[in-house]
């Protein structure tokens, strides 16, 4: 006489319900919206003046620049508001002729007053953009002789004004609506931005997504192929790839690790080749280099100890090429006519490295702190630090791996509290003016906190470039700076990184370009 048969409880029904849902729902992704999944939104701000340079990839869709740029970084007359610009003979007055009939999303016309207002705001106290500093020192006055003409007067002759106000660098060149901002104030603008770009702002949920809607037509791209664009924050790579497979996402940044796997499945993968140089450096002490890396031979030995080809293949899945010149931003090499000769490339020669250390009196090696951290666009950060430390261990250097996160390292580096320790960064590649600006920060003693070279000779050359207006002389100076950096082994260049972006199989052609922090999504959606 068995007990009462199984007892069916109400809760089991819920389980069945969940099961059913598991089967349903892989609905096709409507195409009018282009979805871009990224691993990090970084500052996630909407106001270009507040550290906007890192999020140019969506700001460039909402705002127009004074000077346009082609995807491979060259200035272009039909990419910016200024369709013509010329400079005075003494290189101190730069005149920009504005395009006619361009309107803000609010319907107001874009005039020279807006350009003046935007530039003054970009170099104002509240601004935290990339190059506000140099512009603040350079610009004397901004004149608006006509609604479609702006003249920028500089204290000293310079060539850099058009590039600094172009899309290739930071956001100082973005033109903002004077009337709208003065009427509503900065805070409202920071939450509901208005620009004159091809897409207008719809909504932002921090930590989740930013949605932009296409204007009917725009001088840059005509009528857009997609009614709206959605930038989604998806921190975990496995999830981004799953979204790509399910067709819920059209573009996703993926790690170099999984490119082969995705290509095998037929997903087109676009590369931003040499997007950044992974360069390591020794942190300077309060008054310059400290032993033992003060000795040039030790610096050379540490460079020779690394097998860059193996690192590129193992850590970066072959999606990287060995680098030779510390801080060597390769996109600027063409402009300045700098050629990387085969001898410059560091061979993998641990034997010679050990000999050099012995010559420097350090046969038994020395203690070295290597800081390990992840960075946006460099998920392999910690693995790289471990690998490099491993190579240095092999030539007798006793390395200590110190994991931190980047802000903590940067504070120690800038406050010079950890002399001799090693850090690294994937420095975004850029054109010669951008390269110059970067060198002016990381290889120029007077710019104190961020210097990594502390080399008087380089300081002299950089100072000259600032005041030079003869392009040929500038090129020669730049070439000498790079050669000097290489010969003095003033850093440890590791590799140039190629960043892969996987797209859905149905997506059209797209060149993510080689401009810092910008993905040229407008190319992808352009109706022209």
């Amino acid at each position: 006489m068995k007990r009462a048969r199984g007892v069916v409880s109400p809760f089991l029904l819920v389980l069945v319900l969940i099961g059913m849902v598991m089967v349903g729902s892989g609905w096709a992704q409507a195409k009018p919206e282009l979805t871009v999944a990224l691993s990090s939104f970084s500052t996630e701000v909407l106001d270009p003046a507040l550290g906007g340079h890192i999020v140019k990839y969506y700001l460039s869709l909402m705002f127009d620049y004074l000077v346009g740029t082609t995807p491979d970084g060259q200035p272009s007359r039909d990419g910016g508001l200024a369709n013509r610009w010329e400079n005075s003979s003494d290189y101190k007055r730069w005149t920009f002729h504005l395009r006619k009939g361009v309107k803000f999303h609010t319907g107001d016309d874009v005039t020279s007053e807006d350009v003046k207002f935007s530039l003054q705001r970009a170099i104002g106290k509240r601004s935290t953009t990339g190059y506000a500093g140099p512009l603040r020192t350079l610009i004397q006055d901004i004149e608006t002789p006509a609604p479609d003409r702006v003249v920028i007067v500089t204290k000293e002759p310079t060539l850099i004004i058009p590039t600094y106000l172009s899309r290739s660098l930071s956001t100082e060149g973005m033109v903002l609506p004077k009337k709208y901002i003065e009427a509503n104030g900065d805070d409202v603008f920071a939450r509901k931005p208005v620009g004159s770009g091809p897409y207008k702002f719809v909504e932002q949920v921090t930590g989740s997504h930013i949605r932009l809607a296409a204007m009917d037509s725009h001088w840059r791209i005509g009528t857009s192929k997609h009614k709206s664009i959605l930038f989604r924050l998806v921190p975990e790579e496995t999830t981004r790839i799953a979204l790509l497979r399910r067709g819920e996402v059209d573009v996703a940044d993926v790690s170099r690790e999984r490119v082969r796997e995705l290509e095998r499945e037929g997903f087109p993968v676009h590369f931003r080749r040499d997007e950044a140089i992974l360069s390591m450096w020794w942190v300077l002490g309060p008054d310059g280099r400290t032993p033992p890396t003060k000795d040039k031979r030790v610096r050379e030995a540490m460079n020779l100890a690394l097998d860059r080809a193996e690192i590129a293949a193992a850590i970066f899945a072959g999606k990287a090429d060995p680098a030779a010149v510390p801080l060597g931003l390769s996109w600027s090499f063409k402009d300045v006519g700098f050629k990387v000769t085969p001898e410059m490339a560091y061979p993998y020669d641990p034997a010679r490295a050990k000999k050099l250390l012995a010559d420097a009196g350090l046969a038994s090696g020395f203690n070295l702190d290597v800081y390990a951290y992840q960075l946006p666009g460099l998920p392999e950060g910690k693995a790289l630090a471990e690998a490099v430390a491993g190579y240095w261990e092999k030539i007798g250097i006793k390395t200590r791996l110190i994991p931190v996160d980047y802000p903590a390292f940067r504070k120690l580096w800038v406050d010079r509290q950890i002399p001799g320790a090693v850090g690294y960064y994937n420095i975004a590649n850029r054109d010669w003016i951008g390269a110059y600006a970067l060198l002016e920060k990381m290889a120029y003693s007077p710019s104190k906190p961020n210097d990594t070279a502390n080399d008087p000779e380089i300081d002299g050359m950089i100072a000259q470039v600032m005041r030079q207006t003869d392009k040929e002389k500038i090129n020669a100076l730049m070439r000498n700076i790079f050669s000097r950096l290489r010969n003095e082994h003033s850093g440890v260049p590791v590799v140039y990184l190629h960043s892969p972006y996987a797209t859905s199989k149905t997506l059209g052609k797209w060149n993510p370009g080689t401009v810092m922090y910008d993905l040229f999504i407008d190319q992808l959606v352009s109706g022209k």
Partner: protein
Amino acid sequence: MLAEPGALALPEVAAAADPASRGRRLPVFSLGIIGLFMLVAVLAPILSPADPFEQSLRNRFKPPVWEEGGSWKFPLGTDRLGRDMLSRIIWGSRVSLAAGVLTVLLASAFGAAVGLAAGYYGGRVDAALMRMTDATMSFPVILLALILAVTVGPSFTNVVVAIAVILWARYARVIRGQVLTLMQLDFVAQARIAGAGAWRIITRHLLPNTLGTLLVLVTLQIGYVIIVEASLSFLGAGIPPPTPAWGSMIAEGRDVVTRAWWVSLFPGLAILLVVLAFNLLGDWLRDTFDPKLRQL
């Protein structure tokens, strides 16, 4: 991931012993596994076939020996930097067990002290200590570990401190509950009459009676600590590289879960076995020691 928090003082439900689980035989399975891992941790230098830190990028992501392309040199395959998985798991047992045991001892010592004091003195002392306990219990452990990792940099001690700082609250509440019930019993009054001071009463009378509960809680929590460490490593705040610790090894292997499944599978199995063993041991201890503790 966050498993069994301690019980509060609950009204007594008649504790009819559950004969099946009171079985006399020792939990051979769990004691065996724990013993095995203790042995492996102690004999790591001898057992480990290779140096867990030695890298060779050429041998990265080698599959286990039974897969094609695998070799006996790396029985369980290699990780992203070409380090031998088997050696790292063997050395990892030392780190993970140490983290688990240390954290739990630290937490139970501090928690028991607070619990005993709160239970014994009662009144304002009890209220103050309990408010502190409530505050700690509602402070998210993950955030605390992240903050510690960011301020002082992730390290073994940080992980132990961060988890212990949150865990002690659970011990405090359980021990306090026990002490409250013990206080009603006559033998505490007896001790007071005999002129024993607070310290003697607490250490000689109250503490021994709570040791049973402490032991149960400790075994149940060791597994839980190892799991939390794994989650912290996932967020970058766990035990830092290159130290081999199971949690961080799983976290490292997470991106290549299809291509190099063994990188996170084997440490995961190790964690599963150890946590399983400690949980089963904890259950058995609880059933033999104090069935009323069933609520744990």
